[in-house]
C-alpha cells in the first residue's frame, strides 16, 4: 500500500447511546483508514455499529472518544458551519431509495439543492451541472422535471448517487446503498459506482452486510462485531480462506454459495456451530473479547483480556488472542478451494 496520508482515519472511535437507562456502546474503539481512490468495506451484522460509523463521520452521532481525521484535519467535533465544509468533501448515499428523495420536489430541485446550499446562485451553471450529473449516472435529462415516484428503485438510487456527487466530494459513504435493490438492478448500480470511482477519483466507504457484494467491490474490508473491529485486511483475504478471526470465518461459512452441490459439500464438512445468544441480554465487560460468548475456540484468556488489533497476514489486522492457533482446531480435512476462488466450481474432494 502507498505511504501517502490516508484520506480518512478513524482512530479508537467510541460512540455511546443511552437507551432505557442502559448505556450502549455502538462503537467501541474502532480504528480504520481509507486511502485515496480506495474502496473500503465495512461489514457486520445488525448491531455491529457499521451505520453508526457513517453517522459519526458525518457528525450525526455523538462521538464519545476517539477521533476522525479527514485529509489530516480533525473533524470529530465540529460546529455545523465548520462541518458544512466537510460536507463538500464527504457525502452519503442511503439504503432506502424511496425515502431518500423528497417526493414533492422534482429531481431537478433535489439535485440543485446541494449546489444552492453551498452558495451557487447562477441558474445556468446549476442547470448545466444537473444535466451533466444526470448524464453521468445514465439518466435522461428529461428526469429534471419529473418526480421520484415516476422512477424505479434502481433509478432513484442513481439519483441519490448523483445528488451525492454534486458537491464534488472525495469520499462517498455508501450505506447499504444496493441492499434494497433487486439482483439485476444491483449489478447495474455497482457497475455505475465502479465507473464513477474512476472518472471522479472517488474513495468509497462501502457499508454492507452482504459479503458477496463486499468481496466483489472492495479493496479492503473491516469486519465489525458489536461495535468492535474483529479483523481488517484485503478483501480477498478477509472473505476467503485466510480469514484470521473466528467471527469472520463464521460469517464466511454462513453465506450460502449459489451452487447446490458446493453448498451441500460445505455443510458436510464440519461447520462451526455458533452458540446462539440473544445479543441484548449478554452483558459484556470491557476487558474481554466481545466475541467470546459465541466463539467456538474461546479460552480463559479471552474472557479476561480484550484483544487488540495486531498484524495477521500481509496488510491484515486481527483482534484475537488465539490467532493463528484456532485455525488448526477447525475440525475439517482441509480448506476447500472452490469457495475462495469461484463458488460455481464443483468441489474436488
Amino acid at each position, binding site marked *: 500500500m502507498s505511504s501517502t496520508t490516508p484520506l480518512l482515519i478513524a482512530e479508537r472511535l467510541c460512540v455511546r447511546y443511552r437507551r432505557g437507562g442502559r448505556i450502549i456502546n455502538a462503537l467501541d474503539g474502532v480504528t480504520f483508514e481509507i486511502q485515496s481512490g480506495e474502496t473500503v468495506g465495512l461489514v457486520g451484522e*445488525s448491531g455491529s455499529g457499521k451505520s453508526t460509523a457513517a453517522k459519526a463521520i458525518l457528525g450525526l452521532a455523538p462521538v464519545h472518544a476517539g477521533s476522525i481525521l479527514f485529509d489530516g484535519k480533525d473533524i470529530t467535533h465540529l460546529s455545523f458551519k465548520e462541518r458544512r465544509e466537510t460536507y463538500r468533501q464527504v457525502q452519503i448515499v442511503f439504503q432506502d431509495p424511496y425515502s431518500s428523495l423528497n417526493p414533492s420536489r422534482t429531481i431537478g430541485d433535489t439535485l440543485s439543492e446541494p449546489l444552492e446550499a453551498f452558495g451557487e446562485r447562477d441558474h445556468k451553471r446549476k442547470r448545466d451541472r444537473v444535466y451533466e450529473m444526470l448524464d453521468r449516472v445514465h439518466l435522461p435529462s428529461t428526469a429534471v422535471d419529473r418526480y421520484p415516484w415516476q422512477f424505479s428503485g434502481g433509478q432513484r438510487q442513481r439519483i441519490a448517487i448523483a445528488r451525492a456527487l454534486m458537491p464534488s466530494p472525495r469520499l462517498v459513504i455508501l450505506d447499504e446503498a444496493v441492499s434494497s435493490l*433487486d439482483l439485476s438492478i444491483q449489478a447495474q448500480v455497482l457497475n455505475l459506482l465502479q465507473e464513477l470511482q474512476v472518472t471522479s477519483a472517488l474513495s468509497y466507504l462501502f457499508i454492507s452486510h452482504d459479503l458477496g457484494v463486499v*468481496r466483489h467491490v472492495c479493496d479492503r474490508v473491516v469486519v465489525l462485531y458489536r461495535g468492535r473491529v474483529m479483523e481488517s485486511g484485503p478483501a480477498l483475504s478477509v472473505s476467503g480462506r485466510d480469514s484470521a478471526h473466528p467471527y469472520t470465518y463464521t460469517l464466511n461459512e454462513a*453465506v450460502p454459495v*449459489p451452487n447446490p452441490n458446493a453448498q451441500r459439500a460445505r455443510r458436510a464438512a464440519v461447520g462451526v456451530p455458533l452458540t446462539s445468544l440473544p445479543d441484548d441480554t449478554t452483558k459484556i465487560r470491557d476487558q474481554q473479547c466481545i466475541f467470546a460468548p459465541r466463539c467456538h475456540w474461546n479460552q480463559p484468556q479471552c474472557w479476561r483480556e480484550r484483544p487488540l488489533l495486531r498484524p495477521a497476514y500481509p496488510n491484515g489486522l486481527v483482534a484475537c488472542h488465539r490467532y493463528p492457533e484456532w485455525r488448526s482446531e477447525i475440525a475439517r480435512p482441509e480448506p476447500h478451494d472452490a469457495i475462495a476462488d469461484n*463458488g460455481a466450481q464443483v468441489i474436488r474432494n
Partner: protein
Amino acid sequence: MSILTDQIAIGPATHSYESARSLIRSPVAIAAITFLGVVTLVCISAPVTAPYDPLHQDLERVLSSPTAHNLLGTDTLGRDVLSRLFYGGRRSLLSVLEGVVVVVALGVPMGLAAGYAGGWVDRGLNKFAETIMAVPALIIVLVVLAVLPQNEDAAMISFGLLGIPAILRVVRSATLRVREDLYVAAARISGLSHLQIVKRHIFPRVWGPVIVQASLFAAYALLFETGIAYLGLTADPSTPTWGGMVAEASTVIQRQAWLLVPSGTVIASTILAFGLLGDALRDAVVRGEGGSINRVPRSVVTARDRDADTAEPMNGRSGLVLRARNLSVSTMRSGAEIPIVDGVSFDVYAGETLGIIGESGCGKSVTALAVLRSLPQGLRAIAGRVYWQGDDLLSMTERSFDGLRGSSLAYVSQEPQSSLDPTFTVGNQLVELIRHHQRVSRRKARSSAIALLRQVELQNPDQVARAYAHELSGGMAQRVAIAFALAGRPKLLIADEPTTALDVTVQAEILGLLRRLQRETGMALILITHNWGVIADICDRAVVMYAGQIVEKSGIQEMFDRPLHPYTLGLLNSHPSLAEPGSRLSSIPGNVPSPGSWAPGCRFAPRCRFVAEECVKTPIPLIDIGPGHASRCVRVDQIFAKASA
C-alpha cells in the same frame, strides 16, 4: 369528522397542485365551499342584505310563520328572523375566525418545534399540551366569562388557546413522520441549515393536515360559540346571535315550533359544511400523492376459467402433496383488471423443498397467499385450481378450508416480530393454537408448547414463552413463528422470505432448522425467496418467476449448471459471488415491468439480448425441454444449443 383522533393520513407526498385539482373535482367540497362562501358573504354584508333592522320589533307580527313579509317568520318580539340570522352570523363567523387564527398561529409553530427539535423541547411542549388537554375547554371559558362578562372575543381567544394541543399533536406527528424520512438527513448533509430544511422539506408536507385541522376546528369553534350563546353568556337577549335565537325558540316550543328551525338548521348546516370541507380536504391531500384512502377496490370474481382441463386427476404418483394449475390472481385499478399472477402451475411432493425465486414484483408472494386463501384486500384469485388431496382449495367452502389451516397447510412470513400478536405472550398464543388443533387440557397444551419451542432449537423455552414478540431477537422470533406453524403438524409449510430480514449467521441456523424439521416430519416446503444462495442451500427443485409467470422450472443443480431461460441466465451472471472480484458485472439492462404494463409477447423480451421477431408477437407458453425442466422461451434451442454438460 374525526378531529377526536389525531390520525391524519400522511402519504408519501403532497403535491399541492394535485391536491387542489382533486379538491375541485370533489362535489362535496364544491358544495361546502359554495355554501360557506355564500353564508360568509351574506352575513358580512348584513347591513346591506338584511331586509330589516334586527332590533326592530313589530308587535303585530309576533311569532309568525314564514310569510311574504318575513321570509322566515318572526320571533317573540316580532323581529324578523332572517335579518337576525344575518347579523347573528357576522358575530359567529368572526368568532370562528378568532379561534382558528389563534389555534393555527400558535399551534403550528409549536408543533413544528416539537416534532423537529425533539428532545426536551418536545417533552416540554408535550407536557404543556397534556396539561391543557386535561381541562374541559368550556369550563375555562366560563371562568373567563365570569371575569369578563359577555366578552365573546375573550371567550373565543381562550377557546383557541385551549385548542392548541390538538393541532400541536397533529403537526407534531406530521413533522415527525417527515423528519424520519431519509431525505431530511440528506438535505442536512447537502449543507442546508435547520431553518431551510423546515421551510423547504417539512412545511410543505405539513400544511395539508394543518388546513384539514383548521377546517375541522372551525366546525368545533362554531359549535362552541353557538353553545355559549345559547346559554346567554355572550350577549344580552336582544342582540341577535344564532345560539341565542335557539334559546329563545326553546321557550316557545309549544306555541311556535317553527321558530327552532331556521336558527338550528343554519347552525347545523354551517358546522356540517366546515366538517365536510375538512374531510374533503383530507381526502384531497392524500389523493394528491396518488395514494388510496382506504377506498378498497371491489373484489373481482369472474366466471372466466382459462384452464380447460378442469378434471385433472390427482394421479397416483406417490407423495404429491399440492398441485397448482393455472393459478391467476388479479386486482382492480381504476376500473381495469390488472393481472398480478398469470397462469402459474407447479407441483410439490412430500419431503421435498420447492423454491420459488424471483425479483420484487414478480408475483411470488401473491402466489403463496393465493394458495393459502389469504390474499389481501383488493386481490382475487380469478382462475386456476390448487389441488390438495384431490380437492380444489380455491373452490372449497370457507369452513372446509378452515379445517386445513395450520393442520395441513402452514405459513411462515418474512418479518418475524410482526407476524405474532404483540398483545399476548408468545407462549399464550402457542397454547391457544395447540388447544385449537388438539382438544387437550391447558396443562397438556402448556407442555406441548414448551416441547415445540424446544423442537425449534430455542435454548430457554420457558423464558421465551413468557416473552412478547417484540422482546425477542429476529432469529428467536422466527423460530417461534416456525413453532407456531408446526403446532398443527402440517404436511406443507409455505415460507415466504423467511430469512430475508435476518442476519446471515442466523439465516444459516434457520435454514438448518428447516432442513432438520423436514427430515423429522417429512413435510413438504415451499420456499419463496430472491436469494440464489438460499435456494441453492435448501431446495430440491425451483421455479423462476418473472412478471407474474413461471419462466423456468428445474431441478436445483440443473438450474445453476444449465439455466435455460435468458432471464435466469442473466440473473446468475450478475451475481457477485459468481463473478471475478473487481470485474464489471454482467447486468440485465432495463427495469422489471410493473403489472399492467407487461409486453404482449414474451414479457422479458424488452430486456433480452437474444430477442427475435418470434418473441414479441404472441404469448409464450411454458415448454417442456427435458425431464423436470421447462422454459418459457421459444428460442431455447437456438440460444442454449449444445450447452448440455
